[in-house]
């Protein structure tokens, strides 16, 4: 449904994206993960046909997005990463305008989305909060019922409740066979919706993986507080990977080996266990280190 092939774009400052390739099947939700400045938005701008690739191409539904600009857009819904609306419009004015441009007659889908995202469409856009603007953008990306939906950091600005609503909407559309590509910084967000994800850093795709594989790659830190220091001391001698310790508190790094962790800790009286999920940056670094070491 969506193919990115050897896509390369070098900006004058040397930054850019280099030889990016992946493809998204019909009905699949594909995550695009990477830290700030990794090249997620740049790749998406090529998918939308805004930028001209130095090399490579993007095809949606078999159509080259640079050459068939204006035609591929029939199949695409798009939420930009940095939302900028035309000045002097209300939410409703903007959505009416977009509906006209998209050629949508049936407004039932739009009204349903507005209902679910709960916002007042009669507010002038310039008076809207970040989250409200994001909601307007989400409605504009979904309301014409496109086959492929491209979302650049869709949940930024949404509160946890609305993030949940958003994820529900994505899953429903997915069930209807829609294809998604969404970029994000946050692994948990991708985890809940995506089938596969690509990890990009400094313009280079370092991995395209099944989401379960990525999950198992993710390292978690558990901070175990023991009843007494002696127990903590003996615990240090176990085969588990110890991150750090202080008094009766020990931090253990776990990556998939939950069973041995539970067995080991069950031997002692435990006062508390706290979990620290690794942030995305660390997952990358971890991945980097591992792939670097294996070479």
């Amino acid at each position, binding site marked *: 449904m969506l193919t990115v092939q050897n896509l390369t774009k070098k900006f004058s400052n040397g930054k850019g994206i280099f030889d990016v390739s992946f493809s998204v099947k019909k009905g699949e939700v594909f995550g695009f993960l990477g830290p700030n400045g990794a090249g997620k938005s740049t790749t998406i701008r090529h998918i939308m*046909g*805004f930028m001209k690739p130095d090399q490579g191409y993007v095809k949606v539904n078999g159509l080259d997005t640079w050459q068939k600009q204006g*035609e591929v857009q*029939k199949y695409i819904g798009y939420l*930009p990463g940095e939302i900028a609306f035309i000045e002097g419009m209300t939410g409703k004015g903007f959505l009416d305008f977009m509906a006209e441009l998209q050629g949508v007659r049936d407004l039932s889908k739009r009204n349903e989305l507005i209902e679910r995202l709960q916002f007042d469409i009669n507010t002038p856009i310039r008076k809207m909060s970040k989250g409200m603007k994001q909601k307007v953008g989400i409605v504009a990306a979904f309301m014409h019922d496109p086959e492929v939906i491209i979302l650049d950091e869709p949940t930024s600005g949404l509160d946890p409740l609305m993030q949940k609503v958003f994820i529900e909407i994505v899953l429903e559309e997915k069930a209807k066979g829609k294809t998604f590509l969404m970029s994000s910084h946050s692994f948990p967000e991708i985890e809940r919706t995506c089938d596969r994800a690509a990890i990009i850093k400094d313009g280079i795709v370092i991995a395209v993986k099944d989401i379960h594989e990525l999950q198992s790659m993710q390292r978690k830190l558990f901070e175990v507080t023991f009843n007494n220091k002696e127990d903590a001391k003996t615990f240090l001698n176990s085969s588990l990977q110890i991150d750090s310790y202080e008094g009766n508190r020990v931090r253990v790094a776990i990556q998939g080996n939950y069973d041995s962790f539970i067995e080991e800790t069950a031997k002692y009286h435990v006062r508390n266990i706290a979990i620290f999920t690794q942030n995305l940056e660390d997952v990358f670094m971890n991945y980097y280190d591992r792939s670097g070491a294996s070479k």
Partner: protein
Amino acid sequence: MNFSLYKQMMKVNMKGVMNYAVGAAFYIFLVVWIYPSMEKTAKPLNDMLNAMPAGMTKAFNLQNGFGSFESFISGEFYGLLFTLIVSIFCVMIPTQLMAKLVDQGSMAYLLSTPTTRGKVAFTQASVFLTGLFLISAITTACGILGVRIFIDANSFHADRFIQLNLAAFALFVALGGISFLVSSLSNDEKKAMGTSGMIIFGFYSLDIIGKISEKVDWLRDFTIFTLYKPAEVVNGKGDLLQNCIILFAVGLIAFIVSILVFRKRDLPL
């Protein structure tokens, strides 16, 4: 042409267009209104003009003196005020219609819908031309109305007056086209405005300097303002038709090139 976009853009820019139109209309009323009192003092004023260096009077399109209404309005209004007001319009609006939307990013929304870049650029050009036409039409109408109200209209050559407005319109189509081209090439609103402002007022300055001093008369070969001669138009001299055709052609080519480059341009949206 995309009519939804046209409608929306007219709505957004109408207020701006009307500000310029009202400004121009106000000034032409003012100029028409003060003319009768100027006419009485025309003799001493003309003597004063004659005493000034020829280059000076020519530079400000005053070589016709203040003797007749048409020569007065061609010098005072079409030679100076109107040119300046609408030149500013020709810098501002094309910048807002293209470069600003790219700079802000709202162009991304337009291009994410099934409309082509060519259509978007064509529509935006039409919005500019509609605005320019409205300003010109309102000014012409107010000029004629002003003459009816303030002046004994018997000696008024309405045909010459309309030709004068046509000549001005042709100049602004050319200027607007150039500025639209700059705007279509630009990712930065401020830079686009600065560049087209420099080009247009550079042209204007070349024309004035060339007129003031005979020695640098050749400077006028490098500016399209040379093709706009309000003083000659009201005298029925000069080649109005040819000048207008060249100016319209410059504008047309500029708009076409704008659309072509915008279709193939990298957009950092």
